[in-house]
């Protein structure tokens, strides 16, 4: 009897196994997040922790609604968010426009490498907040110094990644284009730039990560709007629900930026990682 049972029971298990494997990682992640939320709700609902230290999830959600409709510190959540996003957007745009040409120059030209490489390597390891005071002395506490600080933080990763990408272009592809009559400018436009694009996009991803943390830190110190400012001023009045809400929004934006860039990378460089 048992010898007859065995194949019957074994079959569905073997069939179900791959499906369970593909779901499992996401399930684990989902369960972790759900568990964390449940724990948060539990410790606040059972009043084991004072709302001053950790407000309940419902309180944070309610506050979010209030911030969206009425605002905090004379600006709604949207305005704080808009201020932060426009700062990082401006800085990112300027960094892409300048860092990519400079990265190509470093990768292609010996003199450009000699001049620019040590400059970038000198300032890159310095935490941006260490030179923020100097920027404030030079440029005041207006928008310019914040955008400039984020710009500097984003610039180095993009320039270095571009230079690496340019230096590792397949020489056979360069020769192929040359033997088809490509000029120097055409080589850059048609071979070097597309070859380096995966590296450039990785540089942008790293740059945006650094830039976002620098932005929030800069807003904690000198600003009258923005997510960092919102968190900082709420902390001074011990409005913990706004602090928690601000942190959650900052994390969500960082996550969305990363996911967006990954999607962009898949769309722009579909050949990356393909064996060819």
């Amino acid at each position, binding site marked *: 009897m048992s010898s007859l049972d065995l194949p019957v029971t074994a079959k569905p298990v073997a069939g179900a196994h791959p499906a369970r494997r593909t779901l499992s990682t996401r399930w684990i992640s989902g369960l972790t997040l759900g568990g964390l939320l449940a724990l948060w709700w539990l410790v606040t609902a059972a009043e084991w922790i004072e709302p001053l230290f950790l407000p309940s999830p419902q309180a944070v959600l309610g506050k979010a609604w209030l911030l969206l409709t009425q605002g905090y510190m004379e600006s709604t959540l949207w305005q704080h968010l808009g201020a932060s996003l426009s700062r990082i957007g401006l800085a990112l745009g300027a960094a892409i426009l300048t860092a990519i040409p400079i990265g190509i120059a470093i990768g292609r030209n010996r003199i450009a490498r000699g001049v620019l490489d040590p400059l970038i390597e000198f300032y890159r390891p310095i935490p941006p907040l260490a030179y923020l005071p100097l920027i404030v002395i030079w440029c005041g506490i207006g928008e310019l110094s914040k955008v400039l600080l984020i710009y500097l933080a984003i610039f180095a990763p993009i320039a270095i990644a571009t230079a690496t990408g340019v230096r590792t272009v397949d020489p056979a592809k360069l*020769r192929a284009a040359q033997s*088809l009559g490509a000029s120097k400018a*055409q080589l850059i436009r048609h071979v070097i730039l597309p070859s380096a*694009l995966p590296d450039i996009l990785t540089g942008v991803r790293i740059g945006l990560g650094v830039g976002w943390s620098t932005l929030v830190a800069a807003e904690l110190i000198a600003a009258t709007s923005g997510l960092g400012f919102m968190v900082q001023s709420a902390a001074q009045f011990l409005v913990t629900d706004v602090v928690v809400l601000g942190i959650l929004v900052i994390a969500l934006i960082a996550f969305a930026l990363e996911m967006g860039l990954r999607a962009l990378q898949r769309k722009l460089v579909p*050949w990356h990682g393909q064996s*060819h």
Partner: protein
Amino acid sequence: MALLQLERISAQYPGAAEPVLADISLSLGPQQLLVALGPSGSGKTSLLNLIAGFVSPSAGRITLDGVPVQGPSAERGVVFQDDALLPWQDVLANVAFGLELAGVPRPQREQKAREMLALVDLAGFAERRIWQLSGGQKQRVGLARALAADPRVLLMDEPFGALDAFTREQMQELLLQVWQRTAKPVFLITHDIEEAVFLATDLILLAPNPGRVVERLHLDFGQRYAAGESARSIKSDPRFIETREHVLARVFSQRSAAGRQEFA
């Protein structure tokens, strides 16, 4: 008609004591398919790089129709061992790439590229991505790309070296058909003896240390194939076998000579 001439060419890598190539003279004209055969280290690829203009000779002169060769140019098309196609372009754009660089408008260059794809039997593959092609198909695209720019001579750097035996034979026959139809002088390097004997109208045998020509042969097996004889009947012809064995013996005699030198 195009005539490529190499006069007493030598080449040396910077810092190296021995030259890579010493005193090479050869000419390549219409109706010729010149094959350079030699073991690795005999400077085959260096010779092709010199003709393509990727490197400059340390002595001697390379001219195409009397004009000295200076740097790479579209008049000398190259097919590479590892296809060197651009993965961000589809097959059609890869083939049309040379014409795009020359500023040819899109409709004309795409029409020409489709003609070239038909010439290499890849008519239905225009919209494919490069990574969706097999090794043999990639080499055909590489050949079509080089031909689309209408070069005066075609240089091929071990173009079938990475292919399996079956695909390689197909590609050799395809090359002979294309060579016959386009009437372009072809310079091909290989380390496959049968391939060299089958394809060449002119075969040069290179020996290493320093790279030099040790034998020149005029052959007609490729022309016989182009005239309609089947590849199998040519390759089983006693004359073909005899030639192949002769070349094989030459390659081995060099190798044992080189071995004796090393022991001495």
